[in-house]
C-alpha cells in the first residue's frame, strides 16, 4: 500500500500521455489501452519498477459503466498488473482495457518473466490471449475444459466435474 501524502491531491498526472489516478487510500493507478500497454510497461520497468507483483484479469460485464478517467473508454475486460519498486518501496497499478470483440493483449513476459504463470491463469480464467506468450496453455483447469469460468456469463453449478477422457453434458 502506498501512503497518501496530504499535500498530494488526486490531481491527474500522466505517464506517457496515459491518465494516472489515485484511489482514496493513495494507491497509484495508470489506465491504458491495448495498443499502449506494452510500451507503458517497458517505460515503468525503466522507471525503476523492477518487480511484477501480480497480474490478473477482471470481467466488468455487469458493471461496464464504472468510474474511469475521461480519456479511457470502458471495455468489458481488464488486465490488472501490480508493479513494485524495491528501491523506492512504491507500488503502481496498470489497468489495461481489453475489448470483448478481440480479447488480445501483448504479453509482458519479455519484460517481467515472472508473470508467465499469472498470464496463463488470466488466459485460463478469462480467455484473454497474451500475444507472444511462450506457453499459453490452461494452467489450473484440465486442457479439454470448455469456457472460461471467471467470466461473468459463465454460470456456476452447471458443469459437473469434467475429466479429460469423459465428455461433459455439453
Amino acid at each position: 500500500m502506498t501512503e497518501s501524502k496530504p499535500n498530494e491531491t488526486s490531481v491527474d498526472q500522466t505517464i506517457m500521455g496515459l491518465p494516472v489516478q489515485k484511489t482514496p487510500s493513495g494507491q497509484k493507478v495508470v489506465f491504458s489501452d491495448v495498443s499502449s500497454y506494452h510500451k507503458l510497461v517497458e517505460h515503468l520497468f525503466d522507471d525503476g519498477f523492477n518487480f511484477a507483483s501480480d497480474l490478473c484479469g477482471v470481467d466488468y460485464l455487469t458493471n461496464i459503466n464504472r468510474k474511469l478517467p475521461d480519456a479511457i473508454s470502458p471495455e468489458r475486460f481488464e488486465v490488472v498488473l501490480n508493479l513494485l519498486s524495491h528501491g523506492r518501496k512504491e507500488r503502481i497499478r496498470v489497468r489495461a482495457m481489453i475489448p470483448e470483440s478481440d480479447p488480445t493483449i501483448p504479453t509482458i513476459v519479455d519484460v517481467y518473466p515472472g508473470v508467465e504463470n499469472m498470464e496463463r491463469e488470466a488466459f485460463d480464467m478469462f480467455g484473454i490471449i497474451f500475444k507472444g506468450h511462450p506457453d499459453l496453455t490452461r494452467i489450473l483447469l484440465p486442457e479439454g475444459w470448455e469456457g472460461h469460468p471467471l467470466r461473468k456469463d459463465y454460470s456456476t453449478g452447471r458443469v459437473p466435474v469434467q475429466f479429460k477422457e469423459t465428455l461433459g453434458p455439453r
Partner: protein
Amino acid sequence: MTTDRETAQPQIGNSAVLRLPESSGIDTDDLGEIEFGSGEKMIVNMGPQHPSTHGVLRVMMELEGETVLRCKPIIGYLHTGMEKTAEELTYAQGATNVTRMDYLSPLANELVFSLAVEDLLAVEMPPRATWIRMLMCELNRMSSHLMWLATNGMDLGATTMMIFGFRERELILSFFEKTTGLRMNHNYIRPGGVAADLPDGWEEDIEAIYKTVLFRLDEYDEFFTGQPIFRERVEGVGTLSAETAIELSITGPLLRASGVPWDIRKTMPYLAYDEVDFDVIVGTVGDNFDRYAVRLNEIRESANIVRQILDKMPKGDYRAQDSKVTPPPRARIDQSMEALIHHFKLFTEGILVPEGETYVAVESPRGELGCYLVSDGTGRPLRMHVRAPSFVNLQALPPLLRGSLVADAVASISSVDPVMGEVDR
C-alpha cells in the same frame, strides 16, 4: 541438448522451461514425437501422488541419467474455483473462503482479505484489533515454518525432525483452538476486526510458547544445523541467484535466502509492524541450506515479535464500532430496534462496500500474499483475486532443479514450500 552438470547455470528463457504441449506429457501415444536423442534422455512425471510433492504437485522432468535437465510444474489438481466462489459470498462470508486457500497459514489469508475490504470501506481499526491480528499472524508464521521444518526433514530422511516440528506446532495450534475455536480455517480475522477477544490467561500461554519454542530451536540447531550429513545434503543444492529470483517475481523466504532483504513487514509496514523490533533474515547464496536457515531464524524473530506484543498489547475494542460493518452484540438486538435492523441488513445483503478497487499485500510465511478486490457497491465482490505466493514461487522450480540430481529435486521442491491449496485455489 546436452548439459554438463557442473556448468549448468540457472537461467531464464526457453531452455529453462520444458516447452511441450500438455498432451505430450500425458498421452503415451504422443511420446513417439519427442526426440530422445541418444536414448539417454527421458521424460518422467513426479507426482501428483508422490509423497514428497506436498500435496498434488506434478513435476514433469526431462532426465539424462540421474540429472534433471528441464522441468515444468503442472498444477491445477486441487483447483476448486475459490475466486469464483468469492464472487457469490458476501464480504462477511468471504473470510471463510480465503482461509481455506493457504491452509498452513490461514490467518494471513484472512488478514489480507480483511485489510482489502477495510481499505475500500475506509474504516479505522481499534488498536487492540490490529495488535491481536499481528499476534495471531506471527504465531501462524511460527506454526507454518515449524510445519515446513517437519516436512523438509521428512523429505531429507530426518524423521526425528518431522516429529519435532509437529510437536511444537501443536502448542501453537492449541492456542489457536483456545482463541478461535478451530485449529485450522479459523475465520477469526474478519472485515471490521477479529471474531473474539483473546481468552483469559493468554499471557501465560504466549509466555510458555515463547520459552518452549526458543528452547526447542536451540535443540534443532544442535541436532540439524550442525549435522555434517544434513549439511552435505543441502549445501550448494538448488541455488537461486537474486537476479533470477527478482525476475521471476519470487517472494518470501526464497527471495531472502538469495540475499535480497525484502520483507513487506519491514519495507512497507502494515498493521503495527513499525512499532515492534525485529530483524529481516537474509541468506547469501540461496541454496537449500540458506532457505532452511532463513526459515529457522524467522521463527526466532517471530517469537521475539510475539514476546514484544505481549508487553505492548493495548486495551480496548477488538472490533470496529461501526454499525455498518460490525454486527451488533446479541444482547443489543433485544433492546434496540436499530440494532435489529443493522443485524438483519448485515446478514441478508452483507456489508455494503463502496465502489472501487484495491490491492493490498502482506508478508505471509510463503511470501507476498496480495488481494486484489473490486467492488461494484453491492454486498458481494465483483472480483476477488488472491496473489498466492506459492503459485508464483513454483516458477522457481525450473532454474532450481536444472542440473541437479533427482534425489536433490525432492529437497529443492520441499524448500520452495508450496502449499497446493493456495497454488490451485
